[in-house]
């Protein structure tokens, strides 16, 4: 009674009724279902990634409006535009939304869109898990802003220090909403990280050995490993905070042996790698753009990749530099100063390599490349201001002042948002088939570049001038009015630049110039297929002969045939050298990931109000997961071919 393949499971010749061309056959198999149901059940990585990017930008927009409101309030001393309670909710949700609902999701979604195409496969490794990740993220984001719009927005700061955030000083559900938002976004981030790692390790195109993997993909892999290790720390910390508030645990209550500093250690052990989780994908995008627009592969491939890995590792050893004003030993402090300084070395190496790439290239300065130069100009200010913060004596003067928001916005805007906007202009043609307007692109770039400097350089100065951070107002005789007003005007410039960017996107979607498959003459595999990409990505899986897949060959690309055209099938290759190893069937669109996310959502949200919610949610999640794992009935109309490892041995 060993496993014999059932008659219906043997290979079947192509059905004479199937569509004629290869493209039509593959589209029929790989496309989403029709209408709203098709949208809800999609397991296509591009569909899911695109909606995730749009969702992230929606949160970015809301958080941006919050920032504008705060800058209006701070434009004059003792302004009464916004009172302290609303202001505290605004800066908390601005920071939380930007970090958890925009920055990490958007870079992971860009990865989920482009990594599979760049490595020559048809979908991510776990299509349904990908869908589940998106829905979970969406629920978390809706939770946070539902809180804000019902005056139950979290108001304790995005890093939620205890005891302020604890049960004694933050009554109501505000902090609990924050803590659960963390849980949702942490699950989504870990899911996306696993997708990236496994897809890159197991599904690369034949011939794409590890040393031929594009630097953008390497950056995403490094970032994903960091997510796996760092995110659980913030989730554990937020769970402990929620438990202190809901079931009277004493993790952070010093009166019962707990410790406020335990929160800080747990949070910042996550929090410092978090900013590199956001920054490293930016480096990946810069690599991709610099190579294409300099018309040569990135200089120092090995150095760049090793530097990315080094940054990933080192970032886990810096977290105490957020805590220099707490009681710590001097030796401890010096160690973290030195470690924080050390991470500048691999960061510097990557920037030097890109400058060398430009130096020896023949660059074009279309909008994506402008954003790269903007990145160098802005991020370096951010990094150098970071060095000032890493030096303990100076830090004790400027930490917790407006210098901090100045620093973080330079590194985040310069280090991630600028590369992201460059990537937007760069990859928009691939996603939509249309070019963005270069004229509007350049104007919005300059508005943003000038705006960022006018907004945040004064904040560096304000910190030095003695203005603390997270204040809803300041006194007239402090002398800080002028710099604050300047900063607020800069915010207006940024808003204008963003508006033009949105207009650019809208107009280009409607009437942008046709892009064709390869408008930029790029070196990586996404430029080999049509724009927009077909649902199946590649009609045949390409074979790669060098680091720059498209620049290594000039004519037709060698490819691999033999994957089924009547089922969703992908090719798996070995980890080191990408030798074809096995075929794997992928699931069809299904509603189960959405149902599972809803079950998790019910459990986590109900649980804020009553612990029974966790039990109910747990049961529902188990049922949903059982449906997920349950095998489909064998179908007589759809043939399968299950060649087993043991069959091959015979």
């Amino acid at each position, binding site marked *: 009674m060993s496993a014999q393949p059932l008659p219906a499971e043997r290979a079947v010749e192509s059905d004479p009724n199937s569509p004629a061309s290869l493209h039509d056959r593959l589209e029929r198999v790989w496309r989403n279902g029709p209408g709203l149901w098709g949208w809800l059940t999609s397991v296509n990585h591009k569909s899911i990634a695109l909606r995730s990017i749009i969702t992230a930008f929606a949160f970015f927009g809301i958080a941006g409006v919050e920032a504008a409101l705060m800058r209006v309030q701070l434009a004059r001393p003792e302004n009464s535009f916004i009172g*302290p*309670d609303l202001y*505290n909710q605004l800066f908390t949700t601005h920071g939380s939304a930007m970090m958890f609902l925009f920055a990490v999701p958007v870079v992971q979604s860009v990865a989920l869109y482009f990594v599979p195409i760049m490595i020559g496969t048809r979908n991510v490794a776990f299509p349904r898990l990908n869908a589940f990740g998106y829905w979970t993220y969406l629920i978390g984001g809706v939770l946070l802003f539902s809180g804000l719009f019902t005056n139950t927005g979290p108001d*304790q*700061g995005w890093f939620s*220090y205890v*005891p*302020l955030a604890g049960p004694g*000083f933050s009554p109501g559900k505000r902090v609990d909403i924050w803590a659960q938002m963390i849980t949702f976004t942490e699950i989504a981030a870990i899911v996306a990280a696993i997708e990236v790692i496994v897809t890159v390790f197991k599904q690369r195109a034949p011939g794409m050995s590890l040393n031929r993997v594009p630097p953008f993909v390497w950056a995403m892999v490094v970032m994903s490993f960091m997510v796996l290790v760092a995110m659980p720390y913030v989730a554990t910390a937020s769970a402990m905070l929620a438990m202190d508030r809901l079931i009277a645990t004493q993790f952070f209550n*010093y009166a019962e042996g*707990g410790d*406020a500093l335990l929160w800080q250690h747990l949070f910042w052990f996550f929090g410092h790698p978090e900013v590199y989780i956001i920054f490293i994908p930016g480096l990946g995008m810069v690599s991709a753009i610099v190579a294409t627009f*300099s018309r*040569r592969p990135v*200089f*120092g491939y090995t150095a760049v990749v090793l530097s990315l890995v080094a940054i990933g590792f080192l970032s886990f050893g810096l977290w105490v530099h957020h805590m220099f*004003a*707490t*009681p710590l030993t001097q030796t401890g402090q*010096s160690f973290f*100063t*030195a470690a924080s300084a*050390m991470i*500048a070395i691999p960061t*510097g*190496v990557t*920037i*030097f390599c890109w*400058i060398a790439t430009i*130096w*020896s*290239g*023949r*660059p074009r300065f279309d909008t994506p490349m402008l954003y790269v130069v903007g990145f*160098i100009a802005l991020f370096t*200010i951010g990094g*150098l*201001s970071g*060095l*000032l913060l890493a*030096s*303990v*004596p*100076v830090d*004790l*003067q*400027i*930490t*917790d*002042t407006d210098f901090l928001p100045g620093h973080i916005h330079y590194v985040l805007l310069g280090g991630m948002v600028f590369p992201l906007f460059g990537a937007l202009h760069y990859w928009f043609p691939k996603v939509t088939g249309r070019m963005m307007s270069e004229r509007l692109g350049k104007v919005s770039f300059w508005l943003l570049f000038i705006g960022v400097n006018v907004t945040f350089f004064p904040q560096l100065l304000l910190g030095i*001038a*003695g*203005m*603390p951070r*997270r*204040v*809803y107002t300041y*006194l007239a005789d*402090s*002398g800080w009015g002028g710099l604050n007003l300047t900063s607020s005007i800069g915010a207006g410039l940024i808003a204008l630049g963003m508006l033009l960017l949105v207009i650019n996107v809208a107009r280009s979607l409607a009437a942008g110039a046709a892009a064709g498959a390869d408008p930029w003459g790029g070196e990586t595999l996404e430029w080999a297929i049509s724009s927009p990409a077909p649902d199946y990505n590649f009609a045949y899986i390409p074979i790669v002969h060098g680091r720059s897949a498209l620049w290594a060959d000039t004519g037709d690309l060698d490819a691999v045939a033999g994957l089924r055209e009547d089922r969703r099938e992908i090719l798996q290759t070995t980890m080191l050298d990408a030798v074809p190893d096995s075929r794997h069937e992928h699931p069809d669109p299904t509603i189960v990931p959405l149902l599972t996310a809803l079950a998790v959502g019910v459990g986590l949200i109900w649980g804020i109000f009553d612990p029974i919610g966790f039990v109910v949610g747990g049961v529902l999640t188990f049922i949903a997961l059982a449906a997920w794992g349950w095998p489909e009935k064998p179908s007589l109309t759809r043939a399968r071919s299950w060649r087993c490892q043991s069959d091959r041995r015979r």
Partner: protein
Amino acid sequence: MTWAGSIFDTAGTPAERIARLAWFLIIVSAVTYLLVLVATGIAIRRARARRTRGDLADTRPETAKRLTRNVAIATIATTLILLVYVTATALTGKAIAWPLNARQPLTIEVTGYQWWWQFRYRDSVPSNWLTTSNELHIPVGRPVRVILLSNDVIHSFWIPELHGKQDLIPGHRNTTWIQADRPGVWKAHCAEFCGHQHAKMQFDVVAESPAQFDQWYRRQLASALPPTDSAAKRGHDVFVQRTCIMCHSINGTEAGSNVGPELTHIASRPSIAAGSLPNTRVNLGRWILNPQLIKPGVRMPPNALSPADMNALLDYLETLK
């Protein structure tokens, strides 16, 4: 350079050493930044020339070797700058540590409350311990050991003219030190977000000559004199018969609660409401009537007093010099 209120407006040793280090690091940063911009600019110009000439990108091995050498030089230069940075930091760190041979340090225990400051001077003679609120006096030239405690959430003690900040963490006993080397009057701000009125949690700092400090100290130690004229007497009655007595203390009266700032010498303070409002009769009246209009969220409730009661109370408080 003195930019009033900034970290460069130094009035004491730790702040001076830090300011020097900060300047050094800022200059090093500015030079580094310029070098990066110049290198990028040269790269762009060279490469643009290549494009104008019609040449392809240069991927020859000789060029790669040259570029490798340049990247290596830049990396080594970065490492050296960082070594200098770490050394300078370590040296400054040592220089600003608590001077172990400090003669006769003053010890002050600071307790942070949402949203005001309590200062307790721990004199060597326990009966001379002084507790006061929202106004810190220190003698010039004498090191002051500061013990940092918190009554509720995390706050941060920061006088930029004197030293960097240290946090007040409930459950922990943190310490720092300050020393003023010249007289001055400064405003200090809480520097760790602590809730609704973090923005207006300030205190006044006065550094004065040792003689003036002793004089101030002795005056603060003295209890409040009983009121002499009838208006002030009525004001005293308002104070002890209404809600004021539930939170505030005035030495020499029945009022002994330490929920809120102590008020024994309130009339001598330059500001009220934790340093955020100048101490005038009008401001004091507005504050007592409804603190929520000035510092929404503060723990002090509104007090509906009749104008006569209010005037009497203000008269009384004005006697508390």
